[in-house]
């Protein structure tokens, strides 16, 4: 497949290895990530156990997404027709640049000075905030986590819990630093007092914004509705109070019917936060109607491609089933160890490893599909059964075929593959190596240093083998056993 590069998606990229080293030695980050297993992971387990047959539900969700992608043009046209019938204006954008220009144009048309934004990963993907701010339009993130990151000048480190890498202390420091209009000696007794401060500031923004921008979890074709899911209610205030509501959605978000949407909603919150449903799930259909006392006067929906049609035609199509729950990253041992920022990708974790190389090019993102143990936990929890391990393996194959790997890595892989295809040679070499290591390491039981494995032994000891290979032992135990 042809992989296009979209340099606008990321300002700069540092080395993945350097990021990993920094993340592993960052104590606050490690403290923040330490809560994942007992938090999101455990809560998902409990929520899933509360459903009679979650496995069948996942199967249904997968089928709905596959069926939608098979006939996506039809569902998009149906969505467009029904959205227009409800009074919305539908825009189409092939690229991030076009999407940014459409949004900026709409904001400028109404003379917008202040824009509030609900949480939207696609807006990160198209780098919308910088574009609006450069045009002199103040753009405020209203999701609390996103707001904190905006103040700190950071990217989200998780697709549903964007500030998961921060502790309460980090947030307190951030608020003291930025909210300079408030008394410097004010006390923050607990997380609630920080939330209360942000609530007060955000209220004014909600009520005075000219334009509200949200993403969409789903686009319901049969009704022309856009669906958002939040716990804070920020998305609803964002899309209700300003006179203009703009919805950003990539084209694969279409879902044929309300009944299909219901199935996906039964999967989404349980997989994401371990709630049966998030506090607020909202279906919006068009702008304020004649008799309505509130709501936006205009509703504009921007349907964005930005690489999706290429994905649809290629071998990585299954990633388009994704409903952005974040379960794959919550359950990933790599993500749990390094957090989201180390990936330098809008979408971190396994879904990012499968998606980002397609959106931004493999060459600049070749580390992402390598950052997996292939343990398969991500696949086990994915609510729409995306074969994440297979997709990451396909990226590794493309990487190798394109000769992107460093020479030493290529050399060792070639050597291994040479031996692996010659069983006698393989057996001889491994028996010799294991016997040697067994003999040398026998007394201590482990190695502190080992030639060619310095990187491994720098962080931990290598257990010494007991002297015989698995194949060797297998031969012994099965000798004389009738087949």
């Amino acid at each position, binding site marked *: 497949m042809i992989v296009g590069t979209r340099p606008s998606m990321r300002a700069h990229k540092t080395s993945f290895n350097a990021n990993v080293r920094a993340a592993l030695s960052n104590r606050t980050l490690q403290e*923040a990530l330490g809560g994942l297993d007992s938090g999101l992971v455990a809560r998902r387990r409990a929520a899933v156990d509360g459903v009679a*047959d979650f496995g069948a539900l996942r199967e*249904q969700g997968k*089928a709905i997404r596959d*069926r939608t992608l*098979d*006939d996506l*043009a039809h569902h*998009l046209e149906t969505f467009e027709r*029904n959205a227009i019938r*409800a009074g919305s204006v539908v825009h*189409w954008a092939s690229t991030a640049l076009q999407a940014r220009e459409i949004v900026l144009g709409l904001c400028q048309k109404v003379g917008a000075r202040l824009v509030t934004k609900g949480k939207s990963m696609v807006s990160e993907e198209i780098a919308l905030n910088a574009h609006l701010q450069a045009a002199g339009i103040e753009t405020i993130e*209203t*999701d*609390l*986590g996103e707001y*904190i990151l905006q103040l700190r000048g950071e990217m989200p480190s998780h697709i549903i*819990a964007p500030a998961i890498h921060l502790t*309460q202390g980090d947030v307190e420091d951030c608020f003291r630093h930025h909210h300079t209009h408030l008394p410097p000696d004010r006390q923050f007794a607990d*997380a609630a007092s920080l*939330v*209360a401060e942000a*609530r007060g500031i955000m*209220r004014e923004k909600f009520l005075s914004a000219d334009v509200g921008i949200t993403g969409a979890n789903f686009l319901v074709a*049969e*009704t022309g*509705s856009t669906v958002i899911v939040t*716990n*804070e*209610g*920020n998305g609803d*205030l964002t899309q*209700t*109070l300003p006179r203009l509501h703009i919805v950003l959605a990539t*084209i694969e978000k279409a879902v044929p*019917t*309300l009944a*299909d949407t*219901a*199935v996906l909603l*039964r999967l989404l919150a349980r997989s994401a*936060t371990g*709630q*049966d449903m998030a*506090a*607020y*799930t*909202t*279906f*919006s259909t*068009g702008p*304020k109607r004649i*008799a*309505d*006392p*509130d*709501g936006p006067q205009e509703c504009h929906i921007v*349907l964005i*491609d930005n690489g999706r*049609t290429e994905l649809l035609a290629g071998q990585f199509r299954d990633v388009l089933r994704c409903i952005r729950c974040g379960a794959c990253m919550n359950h990933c041992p790599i993500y749990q160890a390094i957090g989201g920022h180390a990936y330098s990708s809008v979408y971190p974790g396994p879904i990012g490893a499968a998606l980002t190389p397609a959106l931004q090019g493999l060459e600049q993102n070749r580390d992402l599909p390598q950052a997996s143990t292939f343990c398969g936990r991500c696949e086990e929890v994915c609510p729409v059964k995306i074969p994440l391990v297979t997709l990451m393996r396909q990226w590794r194959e493309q990487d190798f075929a394109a000769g992107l790997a460093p020479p030493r890595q290529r050399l060792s892989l070639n050597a291994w593959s040479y031996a692996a295809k010659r069983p006698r040679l393989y057996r001889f070499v491994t028996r010799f190596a294991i016997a040697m290591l067994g003999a040398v390491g026998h007394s201590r039981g482990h190695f502190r240093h080992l030639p060619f494995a310095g990187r491994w032994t720098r962080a931990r000891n290598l257990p010494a083998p007991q002297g015989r290979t698995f194949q060797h032992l297998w031969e012994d135990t099965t000798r004389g056993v009738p087949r």
Partner: protein
Amino acid sequence: MSRATILKAVRAAAAQRRPAPLMRQAVAPSGLKLAQSLLSGTLIARLCACGVIVERLRAWDAVPAAVLKVVTAAGQPLVIRHGADALFNTLAWNQVPNLQRRTGAASREDKTSLSRALSAISETGTLVLGSGPDNPVTLSFLPELHIVVLDETCIFETMDEALARVRSPGDAPQLPRTVNLISGASRTGDIGGRLVLGAHGPRQLAVLLVGGSQENGASEGRRQ
């Protein structure tokens, strides 16, 4: 033009593949209609687990007194706002002369709002509200305390059934401008992973469940 380019590319991608076999449409988990008391019980349990205040009332007559009780317990001023829903005009508000009522969309001054849910989903503990003059959508998000009345006979097991109550029948269903599925008060976990209520929307959600519920009769009082 982007529209034509995108749709052409989508069609070209689809033409290369054999479509996935058609699966049966999404269906309700059971297909059996559960007993009303079981639906109510499950709904109440789920709502309470999410920190929602639930009061069971035997009849609509009891709504005004229950509203006053919830407003007072929350320490909010004795003023509520609700929409043009005719239901509210039939209630005996003269029983609670201290409680002032206003109608229309919510503003920043409103501390307490009153809505009627169109239906509810017992499986997930979710209220279904539709916007319009009867229930301006701001009522659900601007005030600090949101009180929702729900007719017990409008509780269903699944989202499909509950949504069927708010959509028009047929192949091109119409919905209220916003359909709000509400499963608790506004909340966030964004600060150190701790759950805090009252992020941007209501700090408290209270449900007045109205139905001649057999076994227990009158209000069971607050359950939390």
